[in-house]
């Protein structure tokens, strides 16, 4: 049940085709000699079923885009956008003053802010989640506050950050922090509350020390829930940074989008949208891989 949390719909959609392939691919095989175990043949059909649908999707998107912009002058066509992207990525790390830096720098600065805000949120949120899960009193004390603060839009926190830190960069990090902390707190707390009573009874019968209970029972049992929280948090953090940077300025992908809007460079805005999407996807995939590594079968 626990590992099901990490299944992406994409994986699930691919599964049936994948499962069907050995039976379908079998007749095409040359007969292997009975002494040797048959070598697994290259599974072209399975590979095609995996790769073709996403490629079709992408082609469809670009096709519709090309069709819609055929006679437009304001909106760039896919070809124009691609040319702009090639130019842009030819030199991603140039520096011409504080407000004109390569897209590579912009992405790195954004990632740095996300890492800082998210890292601080993990540092505070995960232990807080453990405590809320372990102590009922604390749970009842903090739960209403979390329910109240969780749905607040990230940008509502920005002015508070600006007021307290009197500077744009820490305010952006603060916004990331406050928005990405909730999923980690809530998921960790739920994980602790759902540790099977049997495991805790084992701990009681063995009379384990608090340290052993923490390291051998609670932490491994909660880890899958915690990683789900971390994954949601990173997604939120990456969503928020673009909006926050549009308001705070400085070097960053969000500010870059706003800057290009002021320059009326729409091609660059579209490129930025793709870049933001791809970076978000990579962050998510990275954490899914980590989660899969640490999830266990019961």
């Amino acid at each position: 049940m626990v590992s099901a949390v990490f299944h992406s719909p994409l994986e699930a959609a691919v599964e049936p085709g994948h499962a069907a392939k050995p039976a379908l691919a079998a007749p095409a095989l040359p007969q292997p000699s009975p002494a040797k175990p048959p070598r697994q043949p290259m599974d072209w059909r399975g590979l095609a079923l995996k790769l073709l649908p996403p490629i079709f999707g992408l082609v469809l998107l670009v096709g519709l885009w090309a069709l819609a912009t055929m006679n437009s002058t304001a909106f760039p066509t896919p070809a124009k956008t691609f040319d702009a992207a090639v130019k842009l990525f030819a030199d991603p790390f140039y520096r011409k003053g504080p407000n004109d830096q390569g897209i590579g720098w912009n992405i790195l600065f954004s990632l740095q802010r996300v890492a800082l805000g998210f890292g601080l949120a993990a540092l505070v949120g995960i232990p807080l989640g453990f405590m809320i899960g372990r102590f009922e009193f604390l749970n009842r004390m903090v739960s209403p506050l979390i329910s109240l603060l969780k749905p607040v839009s990230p940008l509502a926190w920005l002015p508070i950050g600006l007021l307290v830190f009197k500077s744009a960069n820490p305010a952006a990090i603060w916004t990331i922090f406050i928005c990405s902390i909730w999923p980690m707190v809530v998921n960790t707390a739920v994980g602790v509350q759902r540790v099977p009573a049997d495991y805790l009874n084992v701990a009681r019968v063995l009379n384990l020390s608090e340290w052993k209970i923490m390291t051998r029972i609670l932490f491994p049992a909660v880890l899958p829930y915690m990683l789900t929280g971390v994954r949601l948090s990173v997604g939120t953090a990456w969503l928020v940074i673009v909006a926050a940077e549009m308001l705070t300025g400085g070097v960053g992908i969000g500010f870059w989008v706003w800057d290009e809007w002021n320059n009326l460079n729409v091609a660059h805005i579209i490129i930025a949208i793709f870049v933001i999407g791809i970076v978000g996807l990579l962050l998510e995939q990275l954490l899914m891989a980590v989660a899969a590594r640490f999830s266990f079968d019961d």
Partner: protein
Amino acid sequence: MNNFIEVQQAEMVFTTKKGRFHALRDINLTVAKGEFVTLIGHSGCGKSTLLNLIAGLTLPTAGVLLCDSKEINAPGPERAVVFQNHSLLPWLTCFDNVHLAVERVFGATENKAQLAARTEAALALVGMSHALHKRPHEVSGGMKQRVGIARALAMEPKVLLMDEPFGALDALTRAHLQDELLKIVARTRSTVVMVTHDVDEAVLLSDRIVMLSNGPAATIGEILRVDLARPRNRVALAEDAGYIHCRKAVLDFLYTRHGHVEQAA
């Protein structure tokens, strides 16, 4: 040492959201050292509750429980529990699951090699030496239960408490593990209290069978002494007059005198 475990006038009332539930009343029971006692009764009669009281996992509402003349007021490694659903930690290997218990009990007095040897010996005792470094999900249900038993035995407990340890297994595996348990208990001379709902299991394994009346407010209805010679052989016993008599007595208690579960509840 005739009263190794003593239960005196134990009573258990659970306070739940739906109100008070009177589970057990007037429980008086003594278990001698080296004795094998089973608790049998219909489901919901509170046999697991009684076992949990002896384990110290729950404390009685009234009455006293003693183990080796000391009051039972918390769980402890001297009263090892084999849980119904094995309760192995899925992120630890079979070896590590047992080692966790060994380390806790003997960690202060023995070195690492001795602890590892104890762990391996316990797993060898239940015939699991081949799967030391497998995780619980990689072995069968019967094997998991063996590891659970190994974990309990490795602590060298004064009492082995078993809560329907073979309930979730198929009949053949269950019979096999019962035979293994008989051998292990004969070798280690353990004191065992086991909860079961299987009449044959109770007669085959026990020195005494404690039969509980139906709940709520269940109590001990009858205690049957099983005077069958050990070692016991299930095939030979099938036609043994003493065995058939004991089996009949338990069935009679469960189905003739306390058979109307719904009515009683």
